[in-house]
């Protein structure tokens, strides 16, 4: 049986610190312990407004933080908040990234790819993988959208428009990197089109693969069916899925559900999410 715990309902936490990460992206820090595995998500509640899922992007024994891109009404309100203001947090929920035996105790070769806001979902993972010295690839549309670029010593940056780092996408140089490093596993979070390219690459080269999916969520606890992706509940079975699971999810890289439950192309979904 599920034990009902305090975090099943939102707990109001005071914002301790806020700092700018990039143009339009801020991190909000809370002085509070959270039992979180990288890849899981928490639901952030603005009372009377709405509730949305976020990854934890900073994690320590006595604090955690989230990183938020200003995109719609909800995130606009979040960005107006100041230290001392409160928001409701429930969770963490879902299954995070796993750590196969092949990369335990610093053995094995690892690559982590973050795209756009997806970078927020892989930061805590990268920190957990320090002993493996992972290859870190980070892509964004343009220079001002890149964040966490100074957080890691070895990071390769990409921008779609070439305004910073390499012009193009992290997937462009995967072949060459894999020839050099022989990856045991590649982790990714970012636009699904990008993740699906990495998936194809890993499948072709028999590399273990884990990706964190984004779907519009309601309950967050695996009962409502809103975030379904081919029989899998992204909030409960995911949001992180491995290569085997994704191989059976034909909606991956193709379809997602709007708030009404209408199944649409990822492009139509992305257009709706960005407004």
């Amino acid at each position, binding site marked *: *049986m*599920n034990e*009902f715990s305090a975090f*099943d*309902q*939102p*707990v*109001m936490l005071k914002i301790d610190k806020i700092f700018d990460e990039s143009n339009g992206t801020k991190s909000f820090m809370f002085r509070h312990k959270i039992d979180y595995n990288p890849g899981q998500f928490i*639901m952030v*509640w603005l*009372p*009377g*407004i*709405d*509730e*949305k899922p976020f990854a934890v992007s900073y994690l320590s024994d006595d604090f955690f933080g989230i990183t938020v891109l200003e995109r719609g009404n909800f995130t606009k309100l979040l960005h107006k908040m100041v230290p001392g203001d*409160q928001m*409701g947090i429930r969770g963490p929920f879902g299954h995070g990234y796993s750590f196969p035996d092949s990369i335990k105790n610093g053995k094995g070769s690892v690559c982590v790819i973050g795209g756009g806001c997806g970078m927020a979902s892989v930061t805590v993972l990268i920190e957990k993988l320090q002993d493996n010295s992972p290859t870190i690839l980070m892509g964004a549309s343009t220079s001002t959208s890149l964040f966490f670029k100074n957080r890691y010593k070895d990071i390769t940056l990409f921008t779609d428009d070439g305004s910073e780092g390499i012009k193009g996408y992290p997937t462009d140089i995967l072949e060459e990197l894999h020839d050099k490093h022989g990856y045991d596993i590649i982790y990714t979070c970012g636009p699904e089109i990008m993740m699906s390219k990495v998936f194809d690459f890993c499948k072709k080269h028999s590399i273990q693969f884990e990706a964190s999916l984004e779907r519009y*969520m*309601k*309950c*967050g*606890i*695996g*009962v*409502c*069916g*809103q975030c*379904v992706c*081919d*029989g*899998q*509940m992204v909030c409960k079975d995911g949001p992180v899925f491995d290569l085997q699971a994704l191989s059976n999810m034909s*909606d991956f890289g193709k379809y997602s*559900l*709007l*708030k*009404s*439950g*209408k*199944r649409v192309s990822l492009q139509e979904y992305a257009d709706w999410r960005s407004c």
Partner: protein
Amino acid sequence: MTTANLNIDLCGIKMSNPTVLPSGFLGTSKSLLERVAESGVGAATIKSVSFEAREGHKNPTVIPFEGGMLNAVGYSNPGAEETAREFSNLNEVSIPVIASIIGTEPDDFVRVVDKLSGNEFSAIELPLSCPHTPGFGLLAGQGTPESTGEIVSAVRKASKLPIFVKLSPNIPEIGNLAKAAENAGADAITAVNTLGPGMIINIEARKPVLSYKVGGVSGQALRPVATRCVYDIYESVKIPIIGTGGISTGRHAIEMIMAGATAIGVGTGIYDRGIDVFRKICLEMEEWMSENSYNSIDEMIGIAHE
């Protein structure tokens, strides 16, 4: 000791066991129906469908508490046409599938029934009892014998499928309402919808947690109320009852069957015990029935009345 047989016949629908996935739980896609079928459910209900698409209420829409769950999803659904598309070729799903249909006026229900007439649904359910969505259920006055009778009669004329009418536990004379549904041509009663509405306030935020402020109560807190409703309805009608409300174990299921249910709905139990809850309940029922010398579900229906 012989193994108990859990097969039932619900209005001519053959089910391998009496568990039913109620509307509003996981019924958003055919792929999830297949998933619950693999998890051992006997039949599944799709998420309620209106003629036009609806976005529903804002989040939070579902919130657990010590006694179950509070929800005000607000009937989000992609509309009748999209639903017909999503649930085409239902013969690919190994269990009977029930279409839950909502509307405001009797004609609205009929328009949805018509749109879904080409799909292979096994039954139609009419939830005339939602406590938290303006224009539907209780908030549209559908919980009266007159309104229930009108809607059921209209749908009866439009479809040959078995019609299940889902009632609210809020109705004091629930037996009379069930009788009105039976008289209008309903083939079964689903009892019950969520109770309330109820409210949970976060005292630090000084605000209700659900964005709609109020929501229907399901789970443990609802179970004794649901059991009593099924008991009352069993005394009033001859048609079968799908007992729903707080069931998460085999013992709960048997209790509901003894109150008068032929089939049992399991929704909030998915949160308590995972999606495998259906298989777990069936195993527990079989075990208890064998130990207590019951061979079939039929032998237990309504025996608490004797």
